[in-house]
């Protein structure tokens, strides 16, 4: 498992909402340019975990975190971390498609504009590139100035991916990206994620076990805030070590 380069190292991580412990002593390495899936029943702490990778949980009141998360060797939980810089490097696609109430074009250019990119020509190229890379270009090339809210749910989610790609992150976090999509849109997103692996490190949270099996290289099984098992997807799905994992995979609970 350690033949790959580590991008994210989670070390002795605990997370509390008020007094409830949501994550208990998590240790795991996430590898560069691989897809790592995090599975587990609702409320097991999957989303909480990846929302720590870009410090999205900073917004949650009364939360407390212990331990370390190293991204490229830097402890991003330290008080010195520039959160804005971090989020540029670690992009995120959310559970519900959440395009801004702006035009398709402006949805993508926004990320560049807030990061002080002024060159109009560069922005335009980047918008087109991102749309192509998110397999949306053909569907929207003639209506870039229309409101993004006119797109279908699946298109909106691919737009959110394009928006994320435009700021050139190294890591992309997907928080149940297909939870609100139909099967056809879901398949398109999965194909896209597989394609993106060539350039990005991807972490995907999903409650859909088949999805994890289809797209990921590594899978982590989280249960009640604990990392029960973590390994290659192939091994975890065929010969799980922990009986709890096997029970979950065979649908005994969840």
């Amino acid at each position, binding site marked *: 498992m350690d033949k790959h380069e580590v991008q994210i190292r989670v070390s002795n991580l605990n997370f509390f909402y008020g007094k409830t412990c949501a994550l208990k002593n998590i240790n795991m390495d996430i590898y560069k340019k691989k897809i790592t899936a995090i599975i587990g029943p609702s409320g097991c702490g999957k989303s909480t975990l990846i929302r720590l990778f*870009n410090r999205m949980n900073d917004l949650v*009141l009364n939360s407390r975190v212990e331990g370390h998360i190293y991204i490229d060797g830097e402890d991003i939980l330290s008080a010195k971390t520039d959160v804005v810089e971090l989020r540029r490097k670690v*992009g995120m696609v*959310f559970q519900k498609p959440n395009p801004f109430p702006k035009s398709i074009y402006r949805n993508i250019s*926004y*990320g560049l504009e807030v990061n002080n990119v002024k060159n109009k020509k560069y922005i335009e190229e980047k918008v087109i590139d991102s749309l192509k890379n998110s397999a949306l270009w053909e569907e929207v090339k003639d209506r870039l100035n229309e*409101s993004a809210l006119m797109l279908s749910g699946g298109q909106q989610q691919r737009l959110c991916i394009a928006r994320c790609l435009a700021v050139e992150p190294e890591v992309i976090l997907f928080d149940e990206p297909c939870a609100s999509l139909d099967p056809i849109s879901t398949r398109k997103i999965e194909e896209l994620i597989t394609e993106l692996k060539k350039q990005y490190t991807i972490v995907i949270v999903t409650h859909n076990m088949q999805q994890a099996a289809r797209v990921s290289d590594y899978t982590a099984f989280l249960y009640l805030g604990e990392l029960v098992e973590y390994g290659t997807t192939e091994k975890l799905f065929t010969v799980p070590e922990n009986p709890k994992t096997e029970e979950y995979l065979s649908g005994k609970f969840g």
Partner: protein
Amino acid sequence: MKRSVMSQKIGFFILSLCIITTLFFLGIILYFITVRGLKVISWEFLTQAPRNGMTEGGVAPAIIGTFYLTLGAILFALPLGLACAIYLTEYTPKNTVVNILRISINTLAGVPSVVFGLFGLAVFVKFFNFGVSILSGSLTLGILILPGIISASQEALTAIPHSFREASLALGATKWQTIRRIVLPASLPGILTGVILSIGRAAGETAPILFTAAAFYIRGYPDSVFSEVMALPYHIYGLMTEGTFPEKQTQIAYGCALILMLLVLLISAVAIYFRQKQRRVHYG
């Protein structure tokens, strides 16, 4: 017929009765003001100053005065109110202090307008020595509409889904960039609705400008923010309570009322235009 169906029918009937009653009163007000007001309205009425003890000529100075006072009130209250609303919704945690602030602001909204008039007299006219002027009147009206603008803006800001803010922050935008470029534009239609309501309020109030800005008759037009002005609502009040030709004056008062209504409609139309434009751009 089943009982549940019956009670539903009765419910709908009562609801539609209520809306018809409301529309009936609205229609009657519009009808009377329009019919009576139209009798005196002419080009001269709109463009001339009053003559012969308010019984002849027009009401142009009052139209201009009300326009300035309303515009001044909005220019003062909108930036201030919006800033307060942003601070209260975006930058303060939801705790007791904020709740007390909110309750205070709502209480301010319930203060009778004549009290604002006295306050304006004491503070702007006397203490700051702005005199009885457009400036004093605008500031007084501005404070009067401030609570409305704040609560409308707060509502508009909190209505913006959390997911927009998250998406923006996740792209590496700062909190301020998120507010300025995502939250504010998306909430502008709601904020403008608050502004539209405030315009009507500011233009129509008499008590707050009674001691701070308005005079029954002034020769000529205002030439600075320190000028005393005539204003439509106060002019109506004067026409109906003073003077020696009640018949002629009453007609002119109805003319003023119609113009006041049209003026509010006109200023609101501008705000509505911006609101629609914003909605189109954002929501397709």
